């Protein structure tokens, strides 16, 4: 694999659910908490906290907390774009942009995630590429599971560690 191919990855998952429901799973605090986060705090440009069903917009900032981890494990970032329909983008690990696209293919809705701008230095390239892509693979599978069957696969117990589900 060429060096620059470590700078981004693309993941796709087919989800059998209405497009607006899938979009709201990404672009509302409450939606994200159903399949991804323990707590999703979003603030608008004025610093006002958003309620769980308020749409997330460009320029909002976030604090994300995961099940199975204390509040010291917090990721902070910014929403880069949200078109209210099928495109959502935000900064993530190392401020790398993550872009979510939704489109139809062969009669199914595809959710496509691209994380780009990953560091390419010898010491950390693998860590970011493998670590982040592996994390997203589980959560995209959980998104599909929650939206299609209602089964949340996440581990929510603090005492259970070293599992791919948290």
């Amino acid at each position, binding site marked *: 694999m060429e060096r620059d191919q470590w700078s981004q990855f693309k993941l796709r998952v087919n989800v059998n659910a209405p497009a607006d429901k899938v979009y709201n799973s990404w672009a509302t605090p409450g939606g994200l908490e159903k399949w991804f986060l323990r707590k999703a705090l979003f603030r608008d440009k004025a610093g006002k906290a958003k309620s769980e069903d308020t749409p997330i917009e460009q320029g909002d900032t976030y604090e994300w907390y*995961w099940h*199975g*981890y*204390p509040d*010291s*494990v*917090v*990721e902070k970032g910014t929403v880069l774009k949200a078109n209210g329909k099928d495109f959502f983008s935000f900064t993530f*690990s190392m401020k790398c942009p993550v872009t979510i696209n939704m489109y139809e293919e062969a009669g199914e809705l595809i959710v496509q995630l691209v994380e780009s701008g990953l560091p390419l*230095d010898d*010491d*950390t390239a693998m*860590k*970011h590429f493998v*670590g*982040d892509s*592996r*994390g997203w693979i*589980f*959560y995209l599978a959980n998104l599909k599971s929650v939206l299609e069957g209602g089964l949340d696969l996440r581990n929510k117990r603090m005492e259970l*560690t*070293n*599992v*791919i*589900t*948290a």
Partner: protein
Amino acid sequence: MSRSPVADAPLFSNKPPEFSDHTLCQYVGGKGAVVPAHIAGLGVAVVMSGEATFRINREVIAINEDSFLVVNKGSKLSFKLERDDTLVALLYFDAALSKLLYNGLMKISDETSGWSAVSEEDFSLVEHVHFMNASLREQFQLLMELGNSCASFHSLKADMVVRSILDSLISENYHALQISEKLRVVKTVTKIALYKRLAAVREWIINNCQQPIDLQQAAGVAMLDKQHFLRLFKRAYQITPHNFLTRMRLERAEKLLEETDLAVSDICRSVGFDSVPSFTSLFKRTYGEAPGRYRRKMRLH
């Protein structure tokens, strides 16, 4: 991140290592095992179990599960494990990130006198023994688990924990710089030594405020003459040691009032006051309400 026996511990050269990523070294070994002297990077050393004796530059410091040590970049460090069950975790920060965060903090903070004279990589003021807190212990435990974990986003989560530790360290160093300037001591070596002693006493008072503490004892912890200590403490923290002790006791009492159903008289004694009337009067003067009334009001809200 992996756990290494002492024999495999990374031994660095005679210049500070430049870590391009956060590095957690874990040392286990029998009693008497030694990690020889080496030049360290900026880091935090925690004894997860057992005891260890650290030699940092010319100081010898005993660390156990109740304490931890900040290590400044460029310091000469060695340590010896004092028990068979000792586990030392030494977290070294990514050099580039620590500089970045430091500069970020600089931009949002006011310029202070003397600030520019100190390099962003100098953490010598906070290079001393600190009292362990539950949150740091939990963070180190988490780092050790995440090091070899298959958990989702495990390296990202480890980075978040490290960053949270580094944020606190940078913030503490920033406050240490500000406070040390108030000592009005010209010679840097003296300023650092005095600040470290005062900071150690301050932490000691916080952690022992429920015990009877007098000025003589506190000065003894600082290894300073009583009057000299009193003058320096007040100059640095803008409060006398006695008033600081009272404030710590009241803060602890306020927490207990809010979080427990203990009787006011029990709280009074458990935080270190002898007399309920004087506790009540001090509490009312500080919080505007008597303890019982304050508790009812807090619970209503």
